[in-house]
Protein backbone atom coordinates (compact mmCIF):
# COMPACT_ATOMS: atom_id res chain seq x y z
CA UNK A 1 0.00 0.00 0.00
CA UNK A 2 2.61 2.53 1.12
CA UNK A 3 4.92 1.20 -1.57
CA UNK A 4 2.26 1.70 -4.22
CA UNK A 5 1.70 5.33 -3.25
CA UNK A 6 5.44 5.97 -3.01
CA UNK A 7 5.95 4.57 -6.50
CA UNK A 8 3.21 6.79 -7.87
CA UNK A 9 4.67 9.77 -6.03
CA UNK A 10 8.05 9.21 -7.67
CA UNK A 11 6.36 8.89 -11.07
CA UNK A 12 4.55 12.22 -10.68
CA UNK A 13 7.68 13.90 -9.38
CA UNK A 14 9.44 12.78 -12.57
CA UNK A 15 6.57 14.16 -14.71
CA UNK A 16 6.83 17.55 -12.99
CA UNK A 17 10.61 17.51 -13.30
CA UNK A 18 10.46 16.65 -17.02
CA UNK A 19 7.89 19.33 -17.76
CA UNK A 20 9.85 21.95 -15.84
CA UNK A 21 12.99 20.99 -17.75
CA UNK A 22 11.13 21.13 -21.07
CA UNK A 23 9.83 24.57 -20.14
CA UNK A 24 13.31 25.69 -19.17
CA UNK A 25 14.88 24.41 -22.38
CA UNK A 26 12.27 25.49 -24.94
CA UNK A 27 13.07 29.23 -24.98
CA UNK A 28 16.80 28.55 -24.80
CA UNK A 29 16.99 25.92 -27.54
CA UNK A 30 14.66 27.41 -30.13
CA UNK A 31 16.40 29.22 -32.98
CA UNK A 32 16.02 32.98 -32.84
CA UNK A 33 16.37 35.52 -30.11
CA UNK A 34 15.81 33.87 -26.70
CA UNK A 35 14.77 37.27 -25.36
CA UNK A 36 11.61 37.07 -27.48
CA UNK A 37 10.74 33.72 -25.91
CA UNK A 38 11.47 34.93 -22.38
CA UNK A 39 9.83 38.33 -22.55
CA UNK A 40 7.35 38.13 -25.41
CA UNK A 41 7.17 39.54 -28.91
CA UNK A 42 7.24 43.17 -27.71
CA UNK A 43 10.92 42.89 -26.98
CA UNK A 44 11.71 44.71 -30.22
CA UNK A 45 10.26 47.91 -28.82
CA UNK A 46 12.32 47.85 -25.64
CA UNK A 47 15.27 50.03 -24.86
CA UNK A 48 18.64 48.38 -24.42
CA UNK A 49 18.60 49.01 -20.66
CA UNK A 50 15.26 47.23 -20.39
CA UNK A 51 16.65 44.31 -22.36
CA UNK A 52 19.67 44.25 -20.09
CA UNK A 53 17.33 44.12 -17.07
CA UNK A 54 15.50 41.12 -18.52
CA UNK A 55 18.75 39.35 -19.33
CA UNK A 56 19.83 39.96 -15.75
CA UNK A 57 16.57 38.80 -14.26
CA UNK A 58 16.68 35.50 -16.12
CA UNK A 59 20.40 35.30 -15.54
CA UNK A 60 20.99 34.64 -19.23
CA UNK A 61 24.63 35.56 -18.80
CA UNK A 62 25.08 32.91 -16.09
CA UNK A 63 26.21 29.33 -16.78
CA UNK A 64 23.26 27.15 -17.88
CA UNK A 65 23.12 25.09 -14.68
CA UNK A 66 22.95 28.22 -12.53
CA UNK A 67 20.13 29.46 -14.76
CA UNK A 68 18.34 26.16 -14.26
CA UNK A 69 18.69 26.42 -10.47
CA UNK A 70 17.31 29.94 -10.48
CA UNK A 71 14.42 28.82 -12.68
CA UNK A 72 13.42 25.93 -10.42
CA UNK A 73 13.73 28.15 -7.34
CA UNK A 74 11.48 30.77 -8.93
CA UNK A 75 8.76 28.28 -9.84
CA UNK A 76 8.93 26.64 -6.41
CA UNK A 77 8.32 30.00 -4.75
CA UNK A 78 5.39 30.74 -7.06
CA UNK A 79 7.31 33.27 -9.13
CA UNK A 80 6.29 32.56 -12.72
CA UNK A 81 7.88 35.69 -14.08
CA UNK A 82 6.36 38.77 -15.64
CA UNK A 83 4.03 39.11 -18.60
CA UNK A 84 5.44 42.01 -20.58
CA UNK A 85 2.36 42.09 -22.79
CA UNK A 86 -0.17 42.31 -19.99
CA UNK A 87 2.24 44.31 -17.82
CA UNK A 88 1.49 42.17 -14.78
CA UNK A 89 3.14 39.39 -12.78
CA UNK A 90 2.08 36.04 -14.23
CA UNK A 91 1.20 34.55 -10.84
CA UNK A 92 -1.41 37.31 -10.35
CA UNK A 93 -2.96 36.49 -13.73
CA UNK A 94 -3.05 32.78 -12.92
CA UNK A 95 -4.66 33.32 -9.52
CA UNK A 96 -7.30 35.50 -11.11
CA UNK A 97 -8.18 32.92 -13.78
CA UNK A 98 -7.79 29.63 -11.92
CA UNK A 99 -11.07 29.80 -9.91
CA UNK A 100 -13.15 30.04 -13.09
CA UNK A 101 -11.47 27.04 -14.65
CA UNK A 102 -11.88 25.04 -11.45
CA UNK A 103 -15.56 25.96 -11.32
CA UNK A 104 -16.10 24.92 -14.94
CA UNK A 105 -14.10 21.67 -14.89
CA UNK A 106 -15.18 20.71 -11.35
CA UNK A 107 -18.87 20.95 -12.12
CA UNK A 108 -18.27 19.39 -15.55
CA UNK A 109 -16.52 16.41 -13.98
CA UNK A 110 -19.34 15.77 -11.48
CA UNK A 111 -22.19 16.15 -13.97
CA UNK A 112 -20.60 14.11 -16.75
CA UNK A 113 -19.77 11.33 -14.27
CA UNK A 114 -23.35 11.16 -12.99
CA UNK A 115 -24.82 11.12 -16.52
CA UNK A 116 -22.20 8.67 -17.83
CA UNK A 117 -22.74 6.26 -14.92
CA UNK A 118 -26.52 6.39 -15.27
CA UNK A 119 -26.64 5.73 -18.99
CA UNK A 120 -23.73 3.28 -18.86
CA UNK A 121 -25.63 1.18 -16.33
CA UNK A 122 -28.85 1.32 -18.37
CA UNK A 123 -26.99 0.37 -21.53
CA UNK A 124 -25.31 -2.63 -19.89
CA UNK A 125 -28.50 -3.76 -18.20
CA UNK A 126 -30.29 -3.73 -21.55
CA UNK A 127 -27.36 -5.04 -23.54
CA UNK A 128 -28.06 -6.27 -27.01
CA UNK A 129 -31.39 -4.43 -27.15
CA UNK A 130 -32.31 -1.44 -29.25
CA UNK A 131 -31.88 0.89 -26.24
CA UNK A 132 -28.29 -0.29 -25.85
CA UNK A 133 -27.51 0.18 -29.55
CA UNK A 134 -29.10 3.63 -29.62
CA UNK A 135 -27.25 4.80 -26.52
CA UNK A 136 -23.96 3.51 -27.91
CA UNK A 137 -24.51 5.35 -31.18
CA UNK A 138 -25.46 8.63 -29.47
CA UNK A 139 -22.43 8.54 -27.16
CA UNK A 140 -20.07 7.65 -30.00
CA UNK A 141 -21.34 10.62 -31.97
CA UNK A 142 -20.81 12.88 -28.96
CA UNK A 143 -17.18 11.86 -28.70
CA UNK A 144 -16.63 12.45 -32.42
CA UNK A 145 -17.69 16.10 -32.36
CA UNK A 146 -15.04 18.80 -32.03
CA UNK A 147 -15.56 20.51 -28.65
CA UNK A 148 -15.22 24.06 -29.93
CA UNK A 149 -17.73 23.40 -32.69
CA UNK A 150 -20.34 22.12 -30.21
CA UNK A 151 -19.78 25.34 -28.25
CA UNK A 152 -20.14 27.53 -31.35
CA UNK A 153 -23.39 25.81 -32.34
CA UNK A 154 -24.81 26.19 -28.82
CA UNK A 155 -23.94 29.90 -28.80
CA UNK A 156 -25.48 30.39 -32.23
CA UNK A 157 -28.75 28.73 -31.26
CA UNK A 158 -29.24 29.60 -27.59
CA UNK A 159 -27.49 32.95 -27.32
CA UNK A 160 -27.58 34.64 -30.72
CA UNK A 161 -30.86 33.27 -32.10
CA UNK A 162 -32.97 32.66 -28.98
CA UNK A 163 -31.29 35.15 -26.66
CA UNK A 164 -31.55 32.79 -23.68
CA UNK A 165 -27.96 32.98 -22.48
CA UNK A 166 -25.18 35.57 -22.53
CA UNK A 167 -22.72 35.23 -25.42
CA UNK A 168 -19.43 35.51 -23.53
CA UNK A 169 -17.70 36.05 -20.21
CA UNK A 170 -18.17 34.60 -16.75
CA UNK A 171 -20.38 37.37 -15.36
CA UNK A 172 -21.91 40.62 -16.55
CA UNK A 173 -19.45 43.48 -16.59
CA UNK A 174 -20.10 46.67 -14.62
CA UNK A 175 -23.30 45.29 -13.11
CA UNK A 176 -22.35 45.32 -9.40
CA UNK A 177 -24.67 42.42 -8.71
CA UNK A 178 -24.49 40.89 -5.26
CA UNK A 179 -25.79 37.85 -3.44
CA UNK A 180 -28.31 35.65 -5.18
CA UNK A 181 -28.49 37.90 -8.27
CA UNK A 182 -24.78 37.56 -8.85
CA UNK A 183 -25.03 33.79 -8.39
CA UNK A 184 -27.79 33.58 -11.01
CA UNK A 185 -25.75 35.77 -13.35
CA UNK A 186 -22.71 33.53 -12.98
CA UNK A 187 -24.80 30.39 -13.53
CA UNK A 188 -26.33 31.84 -16.68
CA UNK A 189 -22.86 32.52 -18.06
CA UNK A 190 -21.71 29.06 -17.03
CA UNK A 191 -24.62 27.13 -18.56
CA UNK A 192 -23.42 26.84 -22.16
CA UNK A 193 -19.69 26.24 -21.55
CA UNK A 194 -20.62 23.64 -18.95
CA UNK A 195 -23.07 21.90 -21.29
CA UNK A 196 -20.40 21.78 -23.97
CA UNK A 197 -17.82 20.33 -21.62
CA UNK A 198 -20.24 17.67 -20.36
CA UNK A 199 -21.31 16.72 -23.89
CA UNK A 200 -17.77 16.13 -25.12
CA UNK A 201 -16.43 14.35 -22.04
CA UNK A 202 -19.34 12.16 -20.95
CA UNK A 203 -18.55 9.34 -23.40
CA UNK A 204 -15.48 7.97 -21.62
CA UNK A 205 -17.39 7.51 -18.35
CA UNK A 206 -20.31 5.97 -20.23
CA UNK A 207 -18.08 3.45 -22.00
CA UNK A 208 -16.22 2.45 -18.85
CA UNK A 209 -19.40 2.14 -16.78
CA UNK A 210 -21.04 0.04 -19.49
CA UNK A 211 -18.06 -2.26 -19.81
CA UNK A 212 -17.56 -2.58 -16.06
CA UNK A 213 -21.27 -3.23 -15.49
CA UNK A 214 -21.25 -5.90 -18.21
CA UNK A 215 -18.43 -7.79 -16.54
CA UNK A 216 -20.05 -7.48 -13.10
CA UNK A 217 -23.34 -8.79 -14.46
CA UNK A 218 -21.51 -11.94 -15.56
CA UNK A 219 -20.26 -12.64 -12.01
CA UNK A 220 -21.47 -15.63 -10.03
CA UNK A 221 -22.95 -13.62 -7.19
CA UNK A 222 -25.34 -11.88 -9.57
CA UNK A 223 -26.48 -15.26 -10.87
CA UNK A 224 -26.78 -16.45 -7.30
CA UNK A 225 -28.90 -13.44 -6.36
CA UNK A 226 -31.11 -14.02 -9.38
CA UNK A 227 -31.46 -17.68 -8.51
CA UNK A 228 -32.41 -16.78 -4.96
CA UNK A 229 -35.17 -14.63 -6.37
CA UNK A 230 -33.79 -11.28 -5.21
CA UNK A 231 -35.76 -8.39 -6.69
CA UNK A 232 -34.38 -6.99 -9.94
CA UNK A 233 -34.09 -3.49 -8.50
CA UNK A 234 -32.01 -4.71 -5.58
CA UNK A 235 -29.69 -6.67 -7.87
CA UNK A 236 -29.32 -3.69 -10.17
CA UNK A 237 -28.54 -1.03 -7.60
CA UNK A 238 -27.17 -2.88 -4.61
CA UNK A 239 -25.21 -5.71 -6.19
CA UNK A 240 -24.25 -4.65 -9.69
CA UNK A 241 -23.96 -0.88 -9.78
CA UNK A 242 -22.01 -0.52 -6.55
CA UNK A 243 -19.36 -2.93 -7.71
CA UNK A 244 -19.27 -1.59 -11.24
CA UNK A 245 -18.54 1.90 -9.93
CA UNK A 246 -14.96 1.11 -8.91
CA UNK A 247 -13.30 1.51 -12.32
CA UNK A 248 -15.32 4.68 -12.82
CA UNK A 249 -13.73 6.13 -9.69
CA UNK A 250 -10.26 5.71 -11.20
CA UNK A 251 -11.13 7.51 -14.38
CA UNK A 252 -13.03 10.21 -12.50
CA UNK A 253 -9.80 11.99 -11.63
CA UNK A 254 -7.90 10.84 -14.68
CA UNK A 255 -10.41 12.46 -16.99
CA UNK A 256 -9.55 15.76 -15.37
CA UNK A 257 -6.57 15.99 -17.69
CA UNK A 258 -8.79 15.54 -20.70
CA UNK A 259 -11.27 18.04 -19.27
CA UNK A 260 -8.66 20.72 -18.67
CA UNK A 261 -7.52 20.28 -22.25
CA UNK A 262 -11.09 20.50 -23.47
CA UNK A 263 -11.66 23.53 -21.27
CA UNK A 264 -8.80 25.32 -23.05
CA UNK A 265 -10.72 25.18 -26.29
CA UNK A 266 -14.19 25.69 -24.81
CA UNK A 267 -13.16 28.69 -22.72
CA UNK A 268 -11.82 30.20 -25.93
CA UNK A 269 -15.17 29.89 -27.70
CA UNK A 270 -17.09 31.47 -24.85
CA UNK A 271 -14.39 34.00 -23.92
CA UNK A 272 -14.66 32.46 -20.46
CA UNK A 273 -11.92 34.04 -18.33
CA UNK A 274 -10.24 30.80 -17.16
CA UNK A 275 -6.69 29.51 -17.46
CA UNK A 276 -7.46 27.93 -20.84
CA UNK A 277 -8.60 31.21 -22.31
CA UNK A 278 -5.47 32.79 -20.83
CA UNK A 279 -3.40 30.21 -22.68
CA UNK A 280 -5.20 31.05 -25.94
CA UNK A 281 -4.70 34.80 -25.40
CA UNK A 282 -1.01 34.25 -24.77
CA UNK A 283 -0.74 32.11 -27.93
CA UNK A 284 -2.42 34.89 -29.95
CA UNK A 285 -0.06 37.56 -28.65
CA UNK A 286 2.93 35.16 -28.68
CA UNK A 287 3.48 35.90 -25.00
CA UNK A 288 5.77 32.90 -24.50
CA UNK A 289 6.36 33.13 -20.72
CA UNK A 290 2.60 33.20 -20.19
CA UNK A 291 2.04 30.18 -22.50
CA UNK A 292 4.56 28.25 -20.43
CA UNK A 293 3.07 29.30 -17.10
CA UNK A 294 -0.47 28.32 -18.11
CA UNK A 295 0.82 24.97 -19.33
CA UNK A 296 2.63 24.38 -16.04
CA UNK A 297 -0.37 25.26 -13.89
CA UNK A 298 -2.59 22.89 -15.92
CA UNK A 299 -0.01 20.12 -15.59
CA UNK A 300 0.29 20.70 -11.82
CA UNK A 301 -3.50 20.45 -11.47
CA UNK A 302 -3.64 17.21 -13.42
CA UNK A 303 -0.80 15.62 -11.46
CA UNK A 304 -2.40 16.66 -8.15
CA UNK A 305 -5.71 15.16 -9.25
CA UNK A 306 -3.98 11.91 -10.24
CA UNK A 307 -2.22 11.71 -6.90
CA UNK A 308 -5.52 12.34 -5.12
CA UNK A 309 -7.16 9.54 -7.12
CA UNK A 310 -4.36 7.14 -6.17
CA UNK A 311 -4.74 8.07 -2.51
CA UNK A 312 -8.48 7.51 -2.33
CA UNK A 313 -8.59 4.40 -4.53
CA UNK A 314 -7.45 1.97 -1.82
CA UNK A 315 -10.17 3.36 0.45
CA UNK A 316 -12.78 2.56 -2.19
CA UNK A 317 -11.36 -0.82 -3.08
CA UNK A 318 -9.99 -2.75 -0.08
CA UNK A 319 -8.52 -5.39 -2.41
CA UNK A 320 -5.92 -2.95 -3.75
CA UNK A 321 -4.62 -2.16 -0.29
CA UNK A 322 -4.15 -5.83 0.57
CA UNK A 323 -2.53 -6.82 -2.69
CA UNK A 324 0.12 -4.18 -2.44
CA UNK A 325 1.34 -4.59 0.97
Amino acid at each position, binding site marked *: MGKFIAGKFVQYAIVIFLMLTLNFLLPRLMPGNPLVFLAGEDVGFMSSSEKEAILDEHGLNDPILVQYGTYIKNIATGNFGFSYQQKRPISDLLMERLPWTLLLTGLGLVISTVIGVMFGAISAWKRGTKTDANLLTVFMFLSAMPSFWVGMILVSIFSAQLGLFPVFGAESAWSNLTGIDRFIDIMKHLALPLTTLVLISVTSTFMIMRYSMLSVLGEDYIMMAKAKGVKEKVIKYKHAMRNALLPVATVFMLSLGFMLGGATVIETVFAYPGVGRLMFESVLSRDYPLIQATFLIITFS*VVLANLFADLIYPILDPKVGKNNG
Partner: protein
Amino acid sequence: MDKQKLKNYWSVLSSNNLGMLGVGILLMFLLIALLAPLIAPYDPSVRVGGPFIKPNGDFLLGTNDVGQDIFSELIYGTRVSLLIGIVAALISIVIGCLVGVIAGYYGGKIDSMLMRFVDLILVIPFLPLMILLAAFIGPSFWNIILVISLISWASPARVIRSQVLSLKTKGYVEAAKSIGTNIRVILTKHILPGVIPIALSQFVLAASHSILIEASLSFLGLGDPFTKSWGTILYYAQARGAFLTDAWVWWILPPGLLITTLVIGFAFTGYSLEEILNPRLRKER
Protein backbone atom coordinates in the same frame (compact mmCIF):
# COMPACT_ATOMS: atom_id res chain seq x y z
CA MET B 1 -0.93 -12.09 -43.54
CA ASP B 2 -1.99 -14.84 -45.92
CA LYS B 3 -4.86 -14.61 -48.34
CA GLN B 4 -7.19 -16.94 -46.46
CA LYS B 5 -6.90 -14.81 -43.32
CA LEU B 6 -7.54 -11.65 -45.29
CA LYS B 7 -10.63 -13.23 -46.77
CA ASN B 8 -11.83 -14.14 -43.29
CA TYR B 9 -11.35 -10.60 -42.06
CA TRP B 10 -13.25 -9.30 -45.02
CA SER B 11 -16.17 -11.63 -44.47
CA VAL B 12 -16.50 -10.60 -40.81
CA LEU B 13 -16.03 -6.94 -41.68
CA SER B 14 -18.68 -7.02 -44.37
CA SER B 15 -21.15 -8.76 -42.05
CA ASN B 16 -20.61 -5.93 -39.58
CA ASN B 17 -22.90 -3.02 -40.44
CA LEU B 18 -21.02 -0.37 -38.48
CA GLY B 19 -17.76 -1.43 -40.05
CA MET B 20 -19.21 -1.24 -43.56
CA LEU B 21 -20.64 2.20 -42.82
CA GLY B 22 -17.24 3.30 -41.53
CA VAL B 23 -15.37 2.02 -44.57
CA GLY B 24 -18.00 3.62 -46.83
CA ILE B 25 -17.56 7.00 -45.16
CA LEU B 26 -13.78 6.79 -45.46
CA LEU B 27 -13.96 5.88 -49.15
CA MET B 28 -16.30 8.80 -49.79
CA PHE B 29 -13.90 11.28 -48.16
CA LEU B 30 -10.95 9.75 -49.98
CA LEU B 31 -12.80 10.26 -53.25
CA ILE B 32 -13.65 13.88 -52.38
CA ALA B 33 -10.01 14.55 -51.50
CA LEU B 34 -8.71 13.00 -54.72
CA LEU B 35 -11.28 14.64 -56.97
CA ALA B 36 -11.27 18.03 -55.20
CA PRO B 37 -10.40 20.06 -58.32
CA LEU B 38 -13.28 18.45 -60.20
CA ILE B 39 -15.89 18.84 -57.46
CA ALA B 40 -15.04 22.31 -56.19
CA PRO B 41 -16.56 25.05 -58.37
CA TYR B 42 -13.85 27.60 -57.49
CA ASP B 43 -10.25 27.87 -56.38
CA PRO B 44 -10.63 28.26 -52.58
CA SER B 45 -7.65 30.62 -52.32
CA VAL B 46 -9.02 33.14 -54.81
CA ARG B 47 -11.56 35.89 -54.23
CA VAL B 48 -14.52 35.02 -56.38
CA GLY B 49 -17.18 37.36 -55.02
CA GLY B 50 -17.97 39.96 -52.42
CA PRO B 51 -17.47 39.15 -48.74
CA PHE B 52 -20.23 37.55 -46.63
CA ILE B 53 -22.51 36.60 -49.54
CA LYS B 54 -25.43 34.40 -48.49
CA PRO B 55 -25.83 30.99 -50.16
CA ASN B 56 -27.25 31.31 -53.69
CA GLY B 57 -27.04 29.63 -57.08
CA ASP B 58 -23.44 30.72 -57.62
CA PHE B 59 -22.14 30.06 -54.14
CA LEU B 60 -23.65 26.95 -52.58
CA LEU B 61 -22.59 27.90 -49.04
CA GLY B 62 -21.95 31.59 -49.59
CA THR B 63 -18.61 33.33 -49.27
CA ASN B 64 -16.35 34.08 -46.31
CA ASP B 65 -15.02 37.39 -45.00
CA VAL B 66 -12.65 37.89 -47.95
CA GLY B 67 -15.00 36.63 -50.67
CA GLN B 68 -13.74 33.06 -51.07
CA ASP B 69 -16.24 30.32 -51.83
CA ILE B 70 -16.93 28.38 -48.60
CA PHE B 71 -18.07 25.21 -50.39
CA SER B 72 -14.80 24.99 -52.33
CA GLU B 73 -12.86 25.67 -49.13
CA LEU B 74 -14.57 22.69 -47.53
CA ILE B 75 -13.86 20.38 -50.48
CA TYR B 76 -10.16 21.27 -50.51
CA GLY B 77 -10.09 21.21 -46.69
CA THR B 78 -10.84 17.48 -46.90
CA ARG B 79 -7.36 16.98 -48.33
CA VAL B 80 -5.66 18.79 -45.46
CA SER B 81 -7.66 17.23 -42.61
CA LEU B 82 -7.43 13.73 -44.07
CA LEU B 83 -3.73 13.99 -44.86
CA ILE B 84 -2.75 15.37 -41.45
CA GLY B 85 -4.87 12.74 -39.70
CA ILE B 86 -3.41 9.85 -41.67
CA VAL B 87 0.24 10.94 -41.63
CA ALA B 88 0.20 11.82 -37.92
CA ALA B 89 -1.46 8.52 -37.10
CA LEU B 90 1.02 6.62 -39.29
CA ILE B 91 4.02 8.16 -37.52
CA SER B 92 2.57 7.53 -34.06
CA ILE B 93 1.82 3.91 -34.94
CA VAL B 94 5.33 3.32 -36.28
CA ILE B 95 6.82 4.73 -33.07
CA GLY B 96 4.22 2.85 -31.02
CA CYS B 97 5.04 -0.43 -32.78
CA LEU B 98 8.75 0.05 -32.29
CA VAL B 99 8.43 0.80 -28.59
CA GLY B 100 5.74 -1.85 -28.05
CA VAL B 101 7.64 -4.64 -29.81
CA ILE B 102 10.96 -3.84 -28.13
CA ALA B 103 9.36 -3.59 -24.69
CA GLY B 104 7.22 -6.69 -25.13
CA TYR B 105 9.87 -8.88 -26.73
CA TYR B 106 12.88 -8.05 -24.59
CA GLY B 107 10.92 -7.65 -21.34
CA GLY B 108 12.76 -7.11 -18.07
CA LYS B 109 14.42 -3.79 -17.41
CA ILE B 110 13.96 -2.42 -20.93
CA ASP B 111 10.26 -3.20 -20.73
CA SER B 112 9.68 -1.62 -17.35
CA MET B 113 11.68 1.47 -18.29
CA LEU B 114 9.84 2.00 -21.58
CA MET B 115 6.45 1.44 -19.97
CA ARG B 116 7.30 3.85 -17.16
CA PHE B 117 8.03 6.41 -19.84
CA VAL B 118 4.73 5.67 -21.57
CA ASP B 119 2.91 6.16 -18.26
CA LEU B 120 4.64 9.50 -17.81
CA ILE B 121 3.48 10.68 -21.21
CA LEU B 122 -0.07 9.53 -20.54
CA VAL B 123 -0.25 11.67 -17.38
CA ILE B 124 0.61 14.92 -19.16
CA PRO B 125 -2.49 16.81 -20.39
CA PHE B 126 -1.87 16.32 -24.10
CA LEU B 127 -3.74 19.23 -25.65
CA PRO B 128 -2.05 21.94 -23.53
CA LEU B 129 1.32 20.28 -24.21
CA MET B 130 0.63 20.32 -27.95
CA ILE B 131 -0.39 23.98 -27.76
CA LEU B 132 2.86 24.78 -25.95
CA LEU B 133 5.01 22.92 -28.50
CA ALA B 134 3.10 24.26 -31.51
CA ALA B 135 3.45 27.83 -30.20
CA PHE B 136 7.20 27.46 -29.85
CA ILE B 137 8.05 25.65 -33.08
CA GLY B 138 5.60 27.70 -35.09
CA PRO B 139 2.49 26.85 -37.08
CA SER B 140 3.10 24.82 -40.23
CA PHE B 141 1.73 21.71 -41.88
CA TRP B 142 4.61 19.44 -40.81
CA ASN B 143 4.97 20.94 -37.35
CA ILE B 144 1.33 20.13 -36.59
CA ILE B 145 1.94 16.53 -37.66
CA LEU B 146 5.14 16.37 -35.62
CA VAL B 147 3.45 17.73 -32.50
CA ILE B 148 0.50 15.35 -32.74
CA SER B 149 2.57 12.23 -33.37
CA LEU B 150 5.17 13.08 -30.69
CA ILE B 151 2.51 12.50 -28.05
CA SER B 152 -0.03 10.12 -29.60
CA TRP B 153 2.26 7.08 -29.87
CA ALA B 154 2.07 6.25 -26.17
CA SER B 155 -1.25 4.48 -25.88
CA PRO B 156 -0.84 2.37 -29.07
CA ALA B 157 2.59 1.33 -27.71
CA ARG B 158 0.85 -0.12 -24.65
CA VAL B 159 -1.68 -2.08 -26.68
CA ILE B 160 0.96 -3.45 -29.06
CA ARG B 161 3.22 -4.44 -26.17
CA SER B 162 0.51 -6.57 -24.59
CA GLN B 163 -0.08 -8.25 -27.95
CA VAL B 164 3.64 -9.04 -28.25
CA LEU B 165 3.63 -10.42 -24.72
CA SER B 166 0.92 -12.92 -25.62
CA LEU B 167 2.59 -13.81 -28.96
CA LYS B 168 5.87 -14.47 -27.18
CA THR B 169 4.40 -17.37 -25.25
CA LYS B 170 3.01 -19.05 -28.36
CA GLY B 171 4.54 -22.41 -29.11
CA TYR B 172 6.01 -21.54 -32.49
CA VAL B 173 7.87 -18.53 -31.16
CA GLU B 174 9.33 -20.51 -28.27
CA ALA B 175 10.24 -23.29 -30.69
CA ALA B 176 11.97 -20.85 -33.02
CA LYS B 177 13.88 -19.39 -30.09
CA SER B 178 14.97 -22.75 -28.77
CA ILE B 179 16.51 -23.83 -32.08
CA GLY B 180 18.50 -20.59 -32.06
CA THR B 181 16.72 -18.68 -34.80
CA ASN B 182 18.07 -15.20 -35.46
CA ILE B 183 16.18 -12.54 -33.51
CA ARG B 184 15.56 -10.57 -36.66
CA VAL B 185 13.88 -13.57 -38.26
CA ILE B 186 11.73 -14.21 -35.19
CA LEU B 187 10.63 -10.59 -35.10
CA THR B 188 9.83 -10.24 -38.79
CA LYS B 189 8.50 -13.76 -39.44
CA HIS B 190 6.67 -14.57 -36.23
CA ILE B 191 6.00 -11.47 -34.14
CA LEU B 192 5.30 -8.78 -36.73
CA PRO B 193 2.54 -10.67 -38.61
CA GLY B 194 0.69 -11.04 -35.31
CA VAL B 195 1.16 -7.36 -34.49
CA ILE B 196 0.05 -5.87 -37.80
CA PRO B 197 -3.72 -6.44 -37.42
CA ILE B 198 -3.74 -4.80 -33.96
CA ALA B 199 -1.53 -2.01 -35.28
CA LEU B 200 -4.03 -1.47 -38.08
CA SER B 201 -6.99 -1.00 -35.75
CA GLN B 202 -4.85 1.26 -33.52
CA PHE B 203 -3.87 3.26 -36.59
CA VAL B 204 -7.49 3.85 -37.55
CA LEU B 205 -8.38 4.99 -34.03
CA ALA B 206 -5.28 7.20 -33.85
CA ALA B 207 -6.30 8.82 -37.14
CA SER B 208 -9.70 9.74 -35.72
CA HIS B 209 -8.03 11.33 -32.68
CA SER B 210 -5.47 13.14 -34.82
CA ILE B 211 -8.20 14.72 -36.92
CA LEU B 212 -9.94 16.05 -33.82
CA ILE B 213 -6.68 17.34 -32.35
CA GLU B 214 -5.69 19.01 -35.62
CA ALA B 215 -9.08 20.72 -35.72
CA SER B 216 -8.61 22.01 -32.17
CA LEU B 217 -5.08 23.28 -32.82
CA SER B 218 -6.15 25.00 -36.04
CA PHE B 219 -9.13 26.51 -34.26
CA LEU B 220 -6.74 28.01 -31.69
CA GLY B 221 -4.84 29.68 -34.53
CA LEU B 222 -1.96 27.18 -34.49
CA GLY B 223 -2.75 25.64 -37.88
CA ASP B 224 -0.83 26.21 -41.08
CA PRO B 225 -2.11 29.56 -42.41
CA PHE B 226 -1.40 28.50 -46.01
CA THR B 227 -3.18 25.16 -46.10
CA LYS B 228 -6.69 25.62 -44.81
CA SER B 229 -8.17 22.68 -42.96
CA TRP B 230 -11.72 22.47 -41.64
CA GLY B 231 -10.43 23.67 -38.26
CA THR B 232 -8.86 26.75 -39.88
CA ILE B 233 -12.17 27.60 -41.59
CA LEU B 234 -13.86 27.51 -38.17
CA TYR B 235 -11.08 29.66 -36.72
CA TYR B 236 -11.85 32.42 -39.23
CA ALA B 237 -15.61 31.98 -38.77
CA GLN B 238 -15.12 32.44 -35.02
CA ALA B 239 -12.77 35.40 -35.43
CA ARG B 240 -15.28 37.17 -37.71
CA GLY B 241 -18.17 36.51 -35.31
CA ALA B 242 -20.12 34.29 -37.71
CA PHE B 243 -21.82 32.54 -34.79
CA LEU B 244 -23.67 35.75 -33.89
CA THR B 245 -25.34 36.00 -37.30
CA ASP B 246 -27.37 33.76 -39.61
CA ALA B 247 -24.07 32.79 -41.26
CA TRP B 248 -23.59 30.04 -38.66
CA VAL B 249 -25.88 27.80 -40.73
CA TRP B 250 -23.59 27.78 -43.78
CA TRP B 251 -20.23 28.80 -42.33
CA ILE B 252 -20.03 26.98 -38.98
CA LEU B 253 -22.38 24.01 -39.24
CA PRO B 254 -20.89 22.33 -42.38
CA PRO B 255 -17.19 22.12 -41.40
CA GLY B 256 -18.07 20.65 -37.99
CA LEU B 257 -20.42 18.12 -39.57
CA LEU B 258 -17.64 17.06 -41.93
CA ILE B 259 -15.15 16.66 -39.05
CA THR B 260 -17.68 14.63 -37.05
CA THR B 261 -18.53 12.38 -40.01
CA LEU B 262 -14.89 11.70 -40.83
CA VAL B 263 -14.04 10.95 -37.18
CA ILE B 264 -17.07 8.64 -36.95
CA GLY B 265 -15.95 6.92 -40.16
CA PHE B 266 -12.54 6.16 -38.66
CA ALA B 267 -14.02 5.21 -35.28
CA PHE B 268 -16.57 2.77 -36.74
CA THR B 269 -13.89 1.15 -38.87
CA GLY B 270 -11.51 0.95 -35.92
CA TYR B 271 -13.99 -0.52 -33.47
CA SER B 272 -15.20 -3.17 -35.88
CA LEU B 273 -11.60 -4.08 -36.72
CA GLU B 274 -11.03 -4.55 -32.99
CA GLU B 275 -14.10 -6.73 -32.80
CA ILE B 276 -12.85 -8.88 -35.68
CA LEU B 277 -9.45 -9.28 -34.06
CA ASN B 278 -10.87 -10.03 -30.64
CA PRO B 279 -13.42 -12.84 -31.01
CA ARG B 280 -14.30 -12.57 -27.31
CA LEU B 281 -15.59 -9.08 -27.91
CA ARG B 282 -17.60 -10.39 -30.84
CA LYS B 283 -19.52 -12.81 -28.68
CA GLU B 284 -20.13 -10.35 -25.89
CA ARG B 285 -21.97 -7.80 -27.95
